């Protein structure tokens, strides 16, 4: 597990699964000024039963730095009371979690927008690459980036 220090945010890149309730509790612990929390969890789909696992390659160091930069942008843009981004790497089985973003604020709008923004920017800027490993034993191609992800990030 590697960490990066961004004041007001928790950023981690890790091989192991994460614990959503524990991460949520870390955001809310000891405070009563939060009015809304949005937690986004991205999961590995089985692609209609074709997929055995997703392999997630990442660029150590830059992954933390880049997610930290995105988090700093979110913290500057919305009045957040908590922000967490955790991204896994390695082999991930269908049904398992891949990525977690938690955003907390006094009001729901900021929490929704910040979590949505974080995911759009994670998708297009964090140095992670996915490859499919199939049930039939073959290794699929690297997943291609989607124009819709670029379009989503361009909304902000």
């Amino acid at each position: 597990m590697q960490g990066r220090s961004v004041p007001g945010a928790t950023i981690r890149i890790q091989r192991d699964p994460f614990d959503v309730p524990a991460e949520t509790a870390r955001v809310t612990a000891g405070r009563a000024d939060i009015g809304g929390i949005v937690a986004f969890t991205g999961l590995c789909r089985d692609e209609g039963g074709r997929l055995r696992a997703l392999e997630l390659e990442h660029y150590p160091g830059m992954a933390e730095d880049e997610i930290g930069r995105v988090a700093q942008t979110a913290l500057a843009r919305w009045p957040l009371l908590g922000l967490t981004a955790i991204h896994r790497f390695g082999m991930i089985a269908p049904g398992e979690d891949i990525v977690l973003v938690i955003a907390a604020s006094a009001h729901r709008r900021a929490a929704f927008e910040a979590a949505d923004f974080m995911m759009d920017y994670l998708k297009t800027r964090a140095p992670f690459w996915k490859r499919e490993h199939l049930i039939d034993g073959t290794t699929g191609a690297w997943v291609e980036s989607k124009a819709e992800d670029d379009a989503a990030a361009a909304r902000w």
Partner: protein
Amino acid sequence: MTKLVYFAWVRERVGKPDETIDLPDSVTTVAALLDWQKTRGEVYAHAFEHASVIRVALDKTHAGHDAALGDAREIAFFPPMTGG
């Protein structure tokens, strides 16, 4: 000496995760570096064939193809990201 690092299909085509080399003095921008990589033999010619889609990071920060290399010590080459 500059460390070049490769990820995903760029890494697979180049055949190694990284290498440390001396860049020619004439290579001062990302675009020039991508062009120069193509001249390093068949393997590199194939890996950098579609250089326009390859993303580059200078010392772990995204850089456009028009960026100057400056005194970057680690230069990374990779496809568009597909995390999240």
